[in-house]
């Protein structure tokens, strides 16, 4: 059996935490273990898969509970941390944000109970992952997601349950539904990989120099702003869902995971981050949905088809009346040479409009760079 090496305040800290936790859990009925897997396995698997640890915070910021794998991420063990206050371990500039997320919201709306934020926390791990001295701590960026667990009996028992994942994940498997991009610090594109063409329709060259804010739906400005701020301050960010405009019109829902890195040139050897190089932002963007289209589009397409048939009867001088009036004079035998060209043009135009139709507020329409 293991003898603990704990000092007296630690014991009391842990006791306190334990009592609080029990009070909290008593509020909700316990479920019997029905799963096929041994609960221990399931828990450890869950935490391992999640690549993070569980943290239960009181409204004052006391870390009531931490899952034992916290040592893997912070270098400090569960017993060392439990009962302490999170404000002792996080970056001072993030305290306000933490406080904001710890407050209990009034009302029982489910949405209000969710929490999602990024903080910087002290980590006693060295770069190589070994446990170092607490005195030589580095800042680690954590992405915390979770919810508030309210206790109707006493608000002091209410707390926030969070899963904390360190950013960045070291390897991201890229699928065909993601693309990477690099940006300068003001979020203008400096590089974009080829997959953006198949996903959003833009060619990478078209995007260079443009700001990501131009590319996205206006209503998501605040989401992107928060993302950008996180990047500037904390160097890592997870954006949450926002809409990105598709070139041909409409938009798709996406999520971006971004990090600030020193500008790198892709090279064979492992680069050393050069502090003199300008910083840039690396984004991996996941496409979540397919293109959203308005139902009216179908109506329009049907209309265009109808129009197509009318065009075939077009006879008159295009200069006079382009409205494909049914009262068009059929008597004009001789067709102007341009009429043929014009008809062909109209047909092509309308055909294309059927095939890829949507209004795209970001792109200029017909008078694109292609048109020269």
């Amino acid at each position, binding site marked *: 059996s293991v003898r603990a090496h704990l000092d007296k305040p630690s*014991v009391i800290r842990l006791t*306190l935490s334990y009592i609080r936790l029990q009070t909290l859990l008593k509020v909700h009925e316990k479920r019997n273990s029905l799963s096929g897997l041994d609960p221990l396995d399931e828990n450890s698997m869950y935490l391992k898969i999640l690549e993070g640890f569980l943290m239960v915070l009181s409204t004052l910021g006391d870390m009531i509970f931490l899952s034992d794998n916290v040592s893997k991420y912070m270098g400090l063990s569960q017993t060392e941390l439990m009962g302490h206050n999170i404000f002792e371990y996080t970056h001072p500039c993030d305290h306000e944000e933490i406080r904001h997320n710890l407050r209990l919201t009034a009302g029982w709306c489910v949405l209000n109970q969710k929490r999602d934020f990024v903080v910087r926390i002290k980590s006693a791990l060295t770069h190589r992952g070994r446990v170092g001295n607490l005195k030589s701590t580095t800042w680690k960026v954590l992405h915390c997601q*979770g919810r508030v667990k309210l206790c109707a009996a006493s608000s002091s028992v209410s707390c926030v349950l969070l899963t904390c994942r360190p950013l960045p994940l070291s390897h991201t498997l890229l699928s065909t539904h993601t693309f990477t991009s690099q940006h300068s610090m003001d979020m203008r594109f400096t590089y974009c990989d080829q997959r953006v063409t198949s996903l959003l329709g833009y060619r990478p060259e078209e995007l260079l120099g443009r700001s990501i804010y131009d590319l996205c739906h206006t209503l998501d400005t605040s989401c992107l702003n928060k993302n950008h701020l996180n990047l500037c301050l904390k160097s890592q960010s997870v954006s949450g869902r926002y809409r990105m405009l598709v070139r041909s019109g409409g938009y798709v829902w996406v999520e971006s995971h971004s990090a600030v890195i020193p500008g790198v040139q892709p090279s064979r050897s492992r680069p050393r981050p050069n502090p003199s190089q300008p910083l840039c932002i*690396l984004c991996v963007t996941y496409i979540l949905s397919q293109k959203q289209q*308005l139902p009216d589009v179908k109506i329009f397409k049907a209309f265009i088809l109808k129009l197509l048939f009318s065009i075939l009867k077009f006879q008159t001088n295009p200069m006079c009346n382009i409205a494909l009036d049914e009262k068009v004079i059929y008597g004009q035998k001789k067709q102007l040479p341009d009429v043929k060209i014009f008809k062909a*043009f109209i047909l092509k135009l309308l055909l294309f409009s059927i095939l890829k139709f949507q*209004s795209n*507020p970001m792109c200029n329409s017909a008078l694109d760079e292609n048109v020269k």
Partner: protein
Amino acid sequence: MHHTTTAGVSTCSAALRSLHRERRFQSAGMSTGGSDSTVDKPADRAAEEEEGPIQAESTMPSVELPRKRKGEVEERSDTRVQQSLNFNLEDDLSRSEGEDQQVKMKCFREPHRQIEKRRRDKMNNLIDELSAMIPACQPRARKLDKLTVLRKAVQHLKALKAGASGAFADAKHKPSILPHDDLRHLLLRAADGFLLVVRCDRAKILFISESVSKILNFSKLELTGQSLFDFIHPKDIHKVKEQFSSSEMLPQQRLVDASTGLQVQAEAPVRPSHLATGARRSFFCRMKHSRVTGKHEGKHSLPAASKKKETYRYCTLHCTGYMRTWPSGQLDPEGDAADKETPSLNCLVTVCRLHPNVSHQPPKDVNVKATEFVTRCAIDGKFTFVDQQATTVIGYLPQEVLGTSCYEYFHQDDLQHMAGKHRQVLRSKEKIETQCYKFRTKHGSYVTLQSQWFSFTNPWTKEVEFIVSSNRVISGPGHTKDESEAGSSKSTQDEAQQLPDIPGLSTGVGTMIYAGSIGTQIANELSDTYRANSSPSSGASSPFGSVQEKCLLTSRSTPSREEEAGSSSTSQSQADSSKEAAESSGAPESRGDLSQLDLDVPGLSSFSSDEAAMAVIMSLLETDVNMSQSGDFEDLHWPF
């Protein structure tokens, strides 16, 4: 801080020691120590001497401590509390304490006092907190002494332990502070997710945790053994299939080391066996969730409700996990005979979490006439984003207004007011409300709008990037002249001095062109405050001559793109001026050269009449056809 190392000295005795010491301190200030260092247990001395310089209480020991078992604490504290009256122990304590003091005194005197005080205070605080948490201690009027508090705490813990039935019965597992069930319960509450194990070859769900019922409203039983693809959104099936595949079948798969931004090539000879634990997967997918909560009991479910077709909605899940190989027999006993041949099964083990944001909203009912829409302009007032719903209000399609200055649509009477607000919003961090103003629609009439403007500053450059405007319709175009006049006359009264001096500002055709330059001028003012050098002037001095012949078009309801191009190509402070330049140069294109035309046709969003559709086509035709021969477009009528 004492590192208690041996069985003899327990942590609780250490607590008692400090209490003891405190009592001594209270009476005699800094104790000069008791007897000499005849310590019974050499281990004690070792423990104390190794302390060396005192560490403050708040400093964490740098050695990683093994996890503590709650059960042990209780036992030890239990016995120790009983033994506290044991005189021998107290002697021992005082002796070791004395030595303690001596050692400490040698090194630090002054700081030590403060450190000690801090330690004491912290200890007191903790004990106070403890007494607050324990029900037994609370009703007391007077403050309990520490020993009693501790004693009560022990009792309480014992009671809790008894309550948590069988939590610690399992000796073979590593002890943990929280029973496993509770931990899982907490985890799943926090994470809003479920565990999913899927066979890679057939996408059969091998295991799914209980919590899925909360998230997807399907019970665990319904899902286990089913094919995963039955529950995934059809458009995402391809995406998920990709995640199952082994690396060698996916040549375009790349790994990115997110910390350095480099692409790491997967090792060349990748065999299926390399898909052992570790190959991570992370993706988003949409899964069905049933609206019908509760049990699906088959035939004898509720009569009326079940008649309705079960509608499925999809929620977005973030799935992270890794590939794992397991011997097939163990996991999937129901597998076919074919399974037996495969020695091992590739599985994807993931945790699927509900994406934090709200699940997909159904598209807004487009039949409802939108009375609000959002637009975004560059700092000079040129539209860079127009909500698709705007068309129902203003008649123009988004394409038609993009790149044009908003001033071209404002009624002349409102120009001053809007210019003032424009200036204001560029300098303010708050939302600015405009008064009611008139906005010219496509058909020539005016709608009354009221907007809320907000300027967005790039957090990095600290410069204003764009202005977001949420616009509300106050009244439609049919409203009386009096109202609109009243509104506009109000606005002209204030900020009379702020209208920049634009030559030739007059009614009629010229207004349109010159109005556009107002925005440009305001934007330039802002740029000047950012940069020391003055930006080239624009607006008034622009060669409007080339645009004159196109003026006829401006009075009509169809603003051709060229006039915007003409007026804006001169201004140089726009990010999108290159676009306009392309436009104006593209205008006089020969008709015959149709192949060059990029048929990325302007889209039509929700519009109220077919006329709008034809208007777009018209505008496209205008660019292609030589305009000088255009004649009079006023005769155009659209029978559709």
